[in-house]
């Protein structure tokens, strides 16, 4: 009998362990993506100055903006395509406007293509680091990006695309319930 009890206990521990593991997957996933750059999220860089140099080659830089479903804001890059030099500090802005008559909080999520360019983009400042961008009804804003592309960027990468998606960070769940609100028709 004791034998059986031991097996049951071991198996129950395994079940509990796997349940906890499923939650551990959440931070593990972030760590894994951070190391490998899989989801292309560029984090704030603390040593961007070291990437600034006088030499450097010209590459293409393109900004893309998306609105997540149900996000009514006007959101676009001030300049879509530009030529920049690696090793040179580059500043750009995005334009955002709250087109509704309610105060809203947006949140931008960034991504980069090709994904192996991720490690060479050093962002000093980006509105995508903010947890929430609050805009009053009708308010407009210019959102800043400050970045350097490192000289070490692989030779075969001639163009970089930076994509930003704006989300309504306070969206209610069950969209069936907010059909009559401001989200309609977006």
């Amino acid at each position: 009998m004791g034998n059986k009890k031991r097996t049951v206990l071991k198996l129950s521990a395994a079940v509990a362990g796997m349940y906890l593991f499923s939650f551990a997957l959440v931070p593990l996933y972030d760590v894994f993506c951070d190391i490998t750059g899989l989801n292309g999220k560029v984090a704030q860089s603390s040593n961007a100055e070291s990437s600034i140099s006088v030499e450097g080659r010209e590459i293409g830089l393109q900004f893309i903006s998306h609105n997540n479903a149900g996000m009514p804001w006007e959101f676009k890059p001030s300049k879509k395509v530009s030529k920049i030099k690696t090793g040179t500090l580059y500043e750009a802005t995005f334009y955002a406007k709250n087109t509704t008559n309610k105060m809203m909080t947006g949140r931008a999520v960034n991504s980069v293509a090709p994904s192996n360019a991720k490690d060479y983009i050093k962002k000093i400042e980006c509105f995508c680091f903010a947890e929430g961008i609050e805009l009053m009804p009708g308010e407009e804003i210019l959102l800043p990006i400050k970045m350097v592309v490192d000289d070490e960027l692989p030779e075969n990468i001639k163009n970089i695309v930076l994509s930003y998606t704006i989300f309504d960070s306070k969206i209610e769940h069950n969209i069936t319930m907010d059909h009559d609100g401001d989200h309609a028709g977006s």
Partner: protein
Amino acid sequence: MSAVIENHHDDHGHHGPAKGLKRWFYTTNHKDIGTLYLWFSFAMFLIGGAMAMIIRAELFQPGMQIVEPEFYNQMITLHGLIMIFGGVMPAFVGLANWLVPMMIGAPDMALPRMNNLSFWILPFAFFVLLSSLFMEGGAPNFGWTFYAPLSTTYAPPSTTFFIFSVHIMGASSIMGSINVIVTIMNMRAPGMGLMKMPLFVWSWLITAYLLIAVMPVLAGAVTMMLMDIHFGTSFFDAAGGGDPVLFQHIFWFFGHPEVYIMILPAFGIVSHIIETFSRKQLFGYSSMVWAMLSIAILSFVVWAHHMFTVGMPLAAELFFMWSTMLIAVPTGVKVFNWIATMFRGSITFETPMLFACAFVVLFTLGGFSGLMLAITPADFQYHDTYFVVAHFHYVLVPGAIFSIMAAVYYWIPKWTGNMYDERLGRLHFWLSFVGVNVTFFPQHFIGLAGMPRRVPDYALQFADWNMVSTAGAFLFGFSQVFFLFIVIKTVMGGKKATGEVWEGARGLEWTVDSPAPYHTFGTPPKVS
């Protein structure tokens, strides 16, 4: 185990089951619980099948004919969930309950009360799931894979009930598999070493470990969904710093081992049947065991092949492509072993053998289309098309479900004491065999031609094959009602079966009378 003194040969009346309905609610007998599981899964199979008929009827012709698109989405979702969690999995648990103790010479399952509980929570889980059909906003409509945020932000309110029912199904499976492992590890008859266990027992031991490893992960995934919906967390919501792709990783980390959970017991069943009707010892027993173990281990490192198109670096795509293809090696070992077992055997084709042979051929076919899907660059073309539908239905219907039907025909004389009607059994086989191929083979063509899955309407060029497919589906569907008739007829009566039932059948379950006495192996048999 406390020694049970009396011999199983002189069973007295008072050892028999309680009378009336109470027998089924209170029972802790592995044979009763096995029967309950099998009937429950049959009921779910017919309900899920009725939903499949609605799906195929809608797809009979292009254009919207019978149901609303929203209802169609609810049908595909519930069809998948019910067939997987209500049809295939409980059927295998039912077979394990009936057969594992008899095959290892144990008097019952190790934890009989938990056994009762793990069955009796299942009907409630499916009652909750099915009741969502009648709720405001309808049943879950996001497909059985319930990808977030479709299943969180954009889901109907009934999703909470869906989450609750998945929790109950998970609890039932976990309890069932703990029971199976404890039974196999501690209650084998003296002399039955691990490498002397019948293959069905081996297949269930491995399956139970897989279930223990991944059902908690599924529970974790739906718990995160629950928190995202009701408690303001953002596990899968990019707006709150979460990641929807994370959901797919967690889901398929459960989902891929899950597909082997639904096929490993089938491997065990088919091995027994082919051995018996070839009248030869199974070829390559130990390689069969090692093949199942390697399939189980590999199943944990291939999950991302379900999501090649989410955007992965080349290295990851190559890894998941090669590791997936590697699974073909142990699977190939099994197929060749079955063929080698049949080679120069004195084969007869009774109904179980017909189903087993069809299993080998058609499961292999489904495996091949799986290999095609594993090729990453090709998968970008096949992803989310009817080719995928054809692939997984080939491994699940003539794979898992044919093996369950084969098992029913093979062991029903042992369960009921009556032989099934061989003529009707063969007719049922041929109707099913033709039906399944007419249904699913054309889906390869329309999938390769680009028809997306989970659509209620389609472009005109897919019309002909869809019509063929629907005709096949109704043939297959109605032949399962015929199967129900055959099973009931056998339970009611028929030619009396001997204890051995099949000439040359191997295994301890054939050493007891037919029908198997209510209590078997009170004294453990000696295994040499």
